[in-house]
């Protein structure tokens, strides 16, 4: 009997616990969610009239600028700033710095604008900036990739001396790298930043409420509040937009863009800054032949790709066309010439099986891409059709980790996307992809001309001469074809009337910029 009573009591207590969850949720899902999540201020707040709600497919994990990739997201969401940022034309500008001048190979002088403030009203002076830079260098090894550890020392209230371990000629770009945001801790131990917005409430992975930073500039009072919401599913985000619950869906797929436009919603195209290109595995025997690579390049119908993506431009090189160092390459489609090139390379359909072959071996290509950039899947499929028409035996594959696949050489042609100038300068990406033996040069490409030009670029400051060298390298790559330039894409965002004048730029690097909500007010 005692056992039964104990059993009943146990059952009742556990049932009561479970019922607590269940009944609360059936009665009011919100109440249980709010109580249990602990930090649900954002989700319980109704959107006010002057609040702009933005849907994104990912969200910052924490407000800690030294945590993983969070500084990147904090800047994209308008909370933090790097010392130099890109404007919509790809130029480097600074809200905080007057100038940064090279004194000698490893020594720079950074001059700050006077009167600038953190979001708590404290001054952005030389000491605060020096402390911040030294803290980043101590806590994020990724920040040391370009010129080693930077040691910052305050000289006076607005002057900071920067000493680098390795030489650089483009300190503005180094200070624009995503790791290098300006921050400090306030008296409560919370991080404060210098961006146009301040975090009001934050529910990790769910939502974040922002209010204008009153110390950012004179327009602070004109800026709306912002609520960022994370959607794990793009369809859910689209439905939230259609139901009027969010003012901007960042971003929508080409198909969704067409559908939304058809329904009368405003869909904008924005320069992605990212470039879509194909990496050719030159270590494979057939692809080591320049004629074969030229045939593949000529077979690519970039206009069809742009049509399928519902936006973008034919690539003119390795950078978005608005950069001063963008290439001047003219890509064309010529299927007949492509067929002739393959014939010149010795490929014919000798056994009449519909596929080209040489020395008894079929010309086969394995096209590879990855799922996190859905546009690339579309491009790859079009490319597969075009290459099949040439008589090439084509297979396609979507992999989880493209970099892993590339470094293992398990591909013939890989379709890839990258923002090639996130810091407004070309040398970093050109070095990574085209310098002999560098990190993203997975196909064994080596060119004395390219290596020499990259060496020269390393000694020049930003400017025309450097830009010309970048163009020359892109031209040489166009001739050698280790990489086939495809599309300079434009992405789509859906916006409500509140944001019909808003123009984001540079892909997902500045989703919430200081013009949000100002242009139509």
């Amino acid at each position: 009997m005692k056992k039964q009573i104990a059993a009943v009591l146990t059952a009742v207590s556990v049932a009561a616990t479970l019922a607590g969850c269940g009944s609360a949720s059936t009665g009011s899902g919100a109440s249980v969610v709010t109580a249990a999540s602990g930090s649900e201020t954002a989700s319980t707040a109704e959107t006010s009239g002057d609040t702009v709600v933005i849907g994104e497919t990912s969200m910052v994990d924490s407000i800690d600028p030294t945590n993983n990739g969070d500084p990147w997201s904090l800047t994209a969401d308008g909370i933090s700033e790097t010392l130099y940022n890109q404007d919509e034309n790809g130029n480097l500008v600074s809200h905080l710095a007057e100038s940064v001048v090279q004194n000698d190979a490893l020594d720079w002088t950074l001059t700050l604008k006077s009167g600038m403030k953190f979001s708590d009203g404290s001054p952005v002076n030389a000491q605060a900036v020096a402390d911040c830079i030294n803290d980043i260098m101590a806590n994020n090894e990724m920040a040391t990739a370009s010129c080693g550890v930077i040691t910052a020392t305050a000289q006076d209230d607005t002057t900071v001396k920067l000493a680098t371990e390795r030489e650089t000629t483009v300190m503005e770009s180094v200070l624009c790298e995503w790791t290098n945001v300006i921050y400090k801790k306030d008296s409560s131990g919370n991080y404060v930043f210098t961006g146009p917005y301040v975090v009001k409430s934050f529910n990790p992975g769910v939502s974040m409420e922002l209010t204008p930073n009153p110390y950012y500039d004179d327009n602070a009072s004109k800026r709306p509040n912002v609520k960022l919401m994370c959607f794990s599913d793009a369809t859910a985000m689209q439905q939230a937009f259609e139901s009027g619950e969010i003012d901007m869906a960042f971003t929508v797929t080409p198909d969704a863009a067409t559908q939304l436009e058809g329904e009368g919603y405003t869909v904008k195209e924005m320069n992605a800054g990212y470039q879509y290109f194909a990496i050719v595995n030159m270590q494979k025997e057939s692809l080591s032949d320049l004629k074969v690579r030229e045939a593949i390049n000529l077979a690519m119908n970039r206009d069809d790709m742009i049509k399928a993506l519902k936006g973008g431009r034919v690539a003119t090189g390795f950078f978005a066309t608005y950069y001063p160092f963008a290439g001047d390459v003219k890509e064309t489609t010529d299927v007949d010439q492509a067929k002739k090139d393959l014939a010149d390379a010795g490929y014919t359909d000798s056994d009449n099986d519909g596929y080209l072959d040489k020395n008894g071996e079929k010309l086969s290509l394995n096209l590879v891409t990855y799922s996190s950039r859905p546009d690339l899947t579309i491009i790859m499929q079009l490319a597969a059709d075009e290459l099949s028409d040439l008589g090439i035996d084509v297979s396609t594959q979507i992999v989880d980790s493209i970099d892993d696949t590339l470094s293992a050489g398990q591909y013939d042609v890989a379709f890839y996307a990258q923002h090639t100038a996130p810091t407004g300068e070309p040398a970093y990406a050109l070095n990574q992809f085209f310098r002999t033996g560098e990190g993203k040069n997975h196909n064994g490409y080596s060119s004395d001309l390219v290596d020499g030009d990259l060496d020269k670029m390393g000694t020049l400051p930003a400017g025309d001469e450097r830009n010309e060298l970048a163009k020359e390298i892109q031209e040489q790559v166009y001739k050698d074809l280790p990489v086939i330039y495809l599309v300079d894409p434009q992405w789509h965002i859906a916006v409500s009337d509140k944001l019909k004048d808003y123009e984001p730029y540079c892909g997902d690097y500045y989703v919430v910029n200081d013009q949000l909500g100002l242009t139509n007010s």
Partner: protein
Amino acid sequence: MRRWLSFLGRWLVIFLVASVLIFGLVRLMPVSPVDRWLSAFNLPYTEENVAYVTRRMGLDRPLIVQYADWILNFLKGDWGYSLKSHLDIRQQFLAKLPYSISIGIAGIVISAFAAFFIGYRAAVRRGGICDRVSAALSVLTQSVPSFIVSIVLIYFFGVRLKLVRFFTGNGAYAMTAAILITALYAVGPLSRVVRKAFREEMRSSYVRFSVSRGFSPDQVLFFHASNPVICRLISTVMAEFATVFGGSSVLEFAFGIPGISTFLVTSMKNSDYNVLESYILVVIIWMFFVHLLLNLALQMIDVRRREA
């Protein structure tokens, strides 16, 4: 007492064996969290970068050290940090669990109650409305994915009629919709189980005897034959509880609910070893309590079990 000790011992063995298995299995994932991290930030796949991120994630230590460290800390309540976000896993679980648990438990409880009555009516009135409804719901479960129902629901009430704010309201609508859809999808199969159990009881001698004495078959079934049916229902529902974690991922995605299921799917995408390992152990602990509770309930209801 011995039976309960054996029950406890069995679950302890399951816990320890599963912890070793899951620790090994997640490391067989084709893409490592290091690769994911480097790809996410467009960083070159150089030896230096790989070594740095591997070190930062603590994956450079011998596997046995990693395992011992993880399991001992887990038992002490420290579930470690997410490899992707570097946030405390336990805190993240506690923040997200209420969403999934509410959807799962409320959905199952509602469906079990509804299934009992629908199944009962289906058994006593073969070919009647309840019989047809339960059959139709079973077919619906197998033929229409729940995300379609979710999308249609959002489209009509949110997009077309603009009656409900599923995404930016206080979460009540999204949670209610997710619970009702969960219940809808469980009620069909469960009601067929109940119907079958009642039909079997109808053929038993004690029911036929009571009916032959003039009692109404409906009343005999409901008041005297329901215990074995409830036992069958509880046994079936027991398995459903395993889906409380992870099973609601489609609905969480569709309604933008930040539950543990969404977190699990995202962690899989990121190959976040630490989160996946903790997740499996939490599911095992959860199922231990479900089995404990429902076995107690069965023992109270089913006399034969009690005597055994």
